[in-house]
């Protein structure tokens, strides 16, 4: 490896180095403030390093990683999302009090896994990134709060996610048997000559779709999502819902592009079915929830359903650039929005109520008690619902554009119906937040630290900016794809 190659994977190096430093620091001297600061420095340095890393992109760094601008954008995004999570969770952890330093270490490791996924150009690196991210997440879910609910969630996630990874791994093995290679690009050449009805390939495809569908929580592989989201600590849930989903999706898109998996109609059709099921089931089930975290869990299922539309549209070679651009914009918007929405759940806590279990009435009157945080939630919810002037609207507009251009009327119909249902449960939260003082008797408390306020304002600003001046990002995404 030469210097240019090291430069191209600089974000990974920064995160790995940062993780090592953190580990040493924790081993020698426990100090939460120092750990938080080091974590922030690592993550922000990781995010900034993409500027420098971009100079030597695009190139392959070993056959495993491909450092192109797409990988860098998402590596930067994941670092920023993790940094936001760090700030938002510092108060949360302070209340736990029980040696929370390792939490930050795990967070950095999980981010490193996500970044590896963004770089992946080979099934081996895809699996490595996936496991690095997931294993850190199992611990993250159980670590900060040592009560039954998070432990249950962690075990559930560990067992089910392990099974899903094993299924996907078996699929990879079969794929290797059929194609003779694990590199994305080489695999594409091999598959081009493969017989379509090949039983090995078919079984491999089913197992991989099931395995990765589980990770993306597409219906019918979604069963774990609400329970794990519900049980996990709020900041971790936000990270799980945004970064881990986005990382897997980015890796998936890169694989589809490099190996041209779009040419398998049967695969595309089954993804379309999964998309429709996810959009409808996710939104319908979200209607029934009064626990905000569970509601957001189902809503994330629906959003993943919206998102995989772009894989279907991508099967049309003329529209592939538009579809991928739409998907990337959607991911960025979705990540910012999800971090914001779970950020609120991290920040507020109500007296006499278990914190992981925030019900609708716990946010009652939040507008009058905590205007800034209520605005954060308001903007996030409007963005999730796809109301104009927010990032979510532009993202949805992109999806409409790409699906319309490909005449995908069934997908569009599900998208419209799903979004219309979605408005109800998003608005219900807003309605509760605006309830007047005399209509409820709780008094949510939230930290008032400068950092927390700053990050809330930054999240609000980024969602609104993505929704009102989307042109620069659109142009940038177009130029790198």
């Amino acid at each position, binding site marked *: 490896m030469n210097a240019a190659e090291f430069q191209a994977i600089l974000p990974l190096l920064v995160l790995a180095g940062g993780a090592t430093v953190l580990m040493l620091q924790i081993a020698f001297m426990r100090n939460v403030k120092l750990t938080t600061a080091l974590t922030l420095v690592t993550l922000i340095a990781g995010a900034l390093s993409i500027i420098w890393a971009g100079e030597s992109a695009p190139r392959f760094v070993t056959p495993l990683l491909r450092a192109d601008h797409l990988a860098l954008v998402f590596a930067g995004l994941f670092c920023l999302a993790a940094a936001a999570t760090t700030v938002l969770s510092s108060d949360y952890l302070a209340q736990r009090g029980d040696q929370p330093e390792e939490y930050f270490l795990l967070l950095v490791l999980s981010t490193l896994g996500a970044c590896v996924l963004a770089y992946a150009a080979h099934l081996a690196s895809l699996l490595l990134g996936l496991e690095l991210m997931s294993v850190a997440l199992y611990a993250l879910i159980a670590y900060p709060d040592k009560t039954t609910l998070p432990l249950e969630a962690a075990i559930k996630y560990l067992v089910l996610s392990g099974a899903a990874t094993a299924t996907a791994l078996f699929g990879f093995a079969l794929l290797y048997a059929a194609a003779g290679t694990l590199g994305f690009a080489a695999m594409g050449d091999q598959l081009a000559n493969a017989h379509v009805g090949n039983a090995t390939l078919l079984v491999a495809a089913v197992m991989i779709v099931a395995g990765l569908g589980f990770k993306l929580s597409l219906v019918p592989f979604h069963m774990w999502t609400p329970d794990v989201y519900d049980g996990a600590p709020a900041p971790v849930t936000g990270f799980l819902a945004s970064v881990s989903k986005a990382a897997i999706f980015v890796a998936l898109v890169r694989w589809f592009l490099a190996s041209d998996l779009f040419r398998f109609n049967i695969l595309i059709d089954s993804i379309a079915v999964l998309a429709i099921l996810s959009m409808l089931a996710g939104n319908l089930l979200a209607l029934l929830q009064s626990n905000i975290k569970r509601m957001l869990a189902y809503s994330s299922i629906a959003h993943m359903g919206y998102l995989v539309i772009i894989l279907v549209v991508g099967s049309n070679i003329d529209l592939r650039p538009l579809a991928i651009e739409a998907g990337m914009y959607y991911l960025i918007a979705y990540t910012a929005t999800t971090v914001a929405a779970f950020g609120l759940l991290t920040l507020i806590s109500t007296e006499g109520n278990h914190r992981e279990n925030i019900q609708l009435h716990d946010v009652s009157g939040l507008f009058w008690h905590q205007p800034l945080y209520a605005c954060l939630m308001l903007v996030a919810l409007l963005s999730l619902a796809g*109301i*104009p002037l927010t990032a979510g609207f532009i993202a949805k*507009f992109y999806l*409409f554009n790409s699906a319309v251009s490909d005449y995908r009327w069934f997908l569009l119909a599900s998208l419209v119906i799903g979004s*219309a249902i979605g*408005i109800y449960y998003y608005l219900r939260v807003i309605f509760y937040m605006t309830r*007047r003082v005399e209509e409820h008797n709780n008094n949510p408390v939230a930290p008032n630290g400068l950092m927390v306020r700053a990050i809330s304002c930054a999240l609000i600003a980024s969602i609104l900016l993505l929704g009102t001046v*989307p*042109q620069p990002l659109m142009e940038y995404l177009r130029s790198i794809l």
Partner: protein
Amino acid sequence: MSLVVLIIILIVGGLLAIFAERVGTHLPRWVSLATIVVALIYILGIVSSLPPEQLTITAGPNAASNWLIHLKLEWIPRFGISFELAMDGLSLLLVVLTLLLGLIAVSSSWVEIDFKQGLFQANILWTLAGVTGVFLALDLFLFFVFWEVMLVPMYLLIAIWGHENKAYAAMKFFIFTQFSGLLMLLSIVVLAWQASLANGSYSFSYFDLLGAQLNAKLAFWVMLGFFLAFTVKLPAFPFHTWLPDAHTQAPTAGSVLLAGILLKTGAYGLLRFCIPLFPQASMDFAPVAMAMGAAGVIYGAVLAFAQSDFKRLVAYSSVSHMGFVLLGLYAWNNLALQGAVMQMVAHGVSTAALFMMAGAIQHRLHTRDMHKMGGLWHNAPRMGACALFFALASLGLPGLGNFVAEFLVLVGLFAVQPWINALAALGMIGAAIYALWMMQLAFQGKPDEEREFFDFGIREMTTMAAMMIALVWLGIYPQPVLDLAQPVLDSLQNIVGPASEITGVKP
């Protein structure tokens, strides 16, 4: 830039109102009032500085130079989306109506609101900003943005300051309009994409999309997307069910804004976008639309008669009156279109007045149930006289604006669809019944002697008098309004084709 400034004035005024509350509890309403007055003076100032002959140009609207004011800035060039605002006589009329009714709304809620006045006034101003944007936007994407964004402050008005059943009403209002809005977004995207296939580049501009060639089947479905969004907002039977709930539960200012101007955005959308963009599909669809209009006229009137809730009665009467607008638009000849525009203005004023009346009664009696009223004329003769005036306006008394409007619609419609016309005319009898019934129940009968009841004060009488003058003026000398709208209607008819093609009638 002047149109942007107009919208910015309203938005900034809202922010000022929020901050004003920190200075004084009652300051926000003054800020709000001042903002609307400034906006009104500003827009009238701009118009009066234009050469007067420009108001009468009758060229096709697909040339930017034929508009009174036209502004186009790049916004999202990736999809050919621009920040395009323009004003012609029709938009001017509706923007002025919006601002005037904004004043009425602020006045009607002068003492009603005791919770977070700053935010309340801000939401009123932001609703006005959104509606103004809707009336001015010529880029379909921008139009959609305003269309959706104006709902959010309106939702908050109902959800925060509404009456007992506000959660249900606000939610229903938002979901109805959002769902139909999503269909419209889908239609807009399909239309722009089809046009881009023909032109080679994406554009959402009205000028580029006018005359886009779609195959007949697709055009029908795309037209339906627009039609649904606009008729839900109008509202036309059978999509009106959100309206009685939203109007009833909204605070007085919210009802005034909803009935006075938000409903007009639906009519405006049909007139400006739906019919000109899809002339052929609209022509084929006209009988269905007119049947919906006539059904709305009668159904609204019958249901209005069945109500005991003052606000619900007025709300159903709106369904009935907006049916005339739908009839007028789809009859698509000059008389009927003039009638439709006239109805938009006259109904805006008369219904706003009735909702203000309902709000005033509720503020005093804490009920909207007309069976608990009775004999109010005895307690408050000034209120009674005002209510009688607007009830008569609502039933279409000659000499008042609503009569002119409904008369023009019926005359125009008769040439096209005499039978539907006959049905719709029955609605006017219904209007007489429910309007007088309302007067009888609420203001006549035996008064409750124990009741403490204050009559209208100076503020309320001034507001009412202004609206009365407006209606009498519209009824006796409607020509200025007709003149203002005429060039726009002419040019729209030029796009769609001669009226005979649509209606089968020689002009």
